[in-house]
């Protein structure tokens, strides 16, 4: 690291600025680089270009060899491994083959790392076959709570409770326990109508204490 915090005028190297743009500088070095950039506004354009570059690198992965290419390479290696072992007197040939395989592997690795990334064209908005802002379908939306009077404004999904309320019958409800509130109010089961209802004590036909 060549950033010299004792000499703020010493410019960071291009590699350091690139590392800073990529977020790879240690905290102290990054602070020194930012201080230098603040003190030298003329370098702002270059720094912005570096940020764009690192952003492109992050957003566009290097091209991968196709699965078919990997398969061909693997088959080639396997066929070589399966081939009859050379006679002792032919050892130099084996060394040459291994050297070639190693060289091919290194070449493949270098190609993967340094192969120029094709710039992707900017996405086109407004085409007929693309939906810029995808709208969720009814299956992807669960309305947890709403004022049912706003049902006509609901674009996607259904209300929390669909249709008319289906009420339980008397033989489908059984009170197990009741406790009074702070005012001594104990809920009662109303038995007089066609369906059971819970009522306050002493009102609505409920039983007086």
């Amino acid at each position, binding site marked *: 690291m060549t950033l010299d915090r004792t000499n703020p005028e010493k410019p960071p190297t291009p590699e350091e600025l690139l590392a800073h743009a990529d977020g790879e500088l240690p905290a102290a070095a990054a602070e020194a680089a930012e201080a230098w950039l603040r003190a030298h506004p003329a370098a702002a354009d270059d720094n912005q270009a570096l940020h764009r570059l690192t952003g492109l690198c992050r957003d566009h992965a290097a091209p991968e060899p196709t699965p078919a290419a990997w398969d061909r390479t693997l088959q080639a290696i396997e066929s070589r491994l399966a081939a009859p072992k050379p006679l002792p007197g032919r050892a130099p040939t084996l060394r040459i083959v291994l050297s070639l395989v190693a060289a091919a592997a290194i070449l493949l690795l270098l190609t993967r790392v340094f192969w120029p990334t094709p710039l992707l064209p900017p996405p086109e908005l407004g085409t007929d076959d693309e939906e810029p802002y995808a709208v969720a379908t009814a299956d992807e939306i669960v309305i947890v709570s*709403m004022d049912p009077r706003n049902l006509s404004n609901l674009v996607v999904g259904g209300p929390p*409770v669909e249709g*008319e*309320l289906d009420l339980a019958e008397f033989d489908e*409800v059984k009170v197990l326990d*009741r406790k009074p509130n702070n005012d001594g109010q104990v809920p009662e089961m109303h038995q007089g*109508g066609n369906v059971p209802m819970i009522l306050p004590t002493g009102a609505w036909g409920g039983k007086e204490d």
Partner: protein
Amino acid sequence: MSSFVLGRGRFAPIALFAVLCSAAAIRAEDGKVTVSVVAILATDQNAVIDKKLVKIAEEVQKLNPKLTGFHSPKETRKDIAINSKEKFELVDGQVVTITIEQAADAKNMNVLRVGPPTLGEITYMTICGKFLPIITEYKTKDGDILIIAIRVQPCRGK
């Protein structure tokens, strides 16, 4: 458990029965049930009744014929875990607390502990898929009476 069931033949039916009973009380997928709560306001100031509240309006009017208008300002549906206490907002900051003590059993009966506004706590067993109305003593500033309807789902096999 499996070694107990498989390893001791004479206890196997008992253990299997216990396992089946416990499984029957809990929803198979995730141990949660869906609770729907409808807040209803009943009034004597108009005669408008929401379509979905017609049945409940008929029953409430048998007790108090002056209540001629019924509408729902809020309905809520939540998935809640067994034995966890959940609050459901109603109107004017009022809430009802609901705890599912038992999900649908073999007869599709659930056990709920409910704490409605202005009333004491009540624990009851009810069928899945149907609403039980609870009339409270809470009144809005307009004099509307708050009624709650609660339903638990799903039913077994649905």
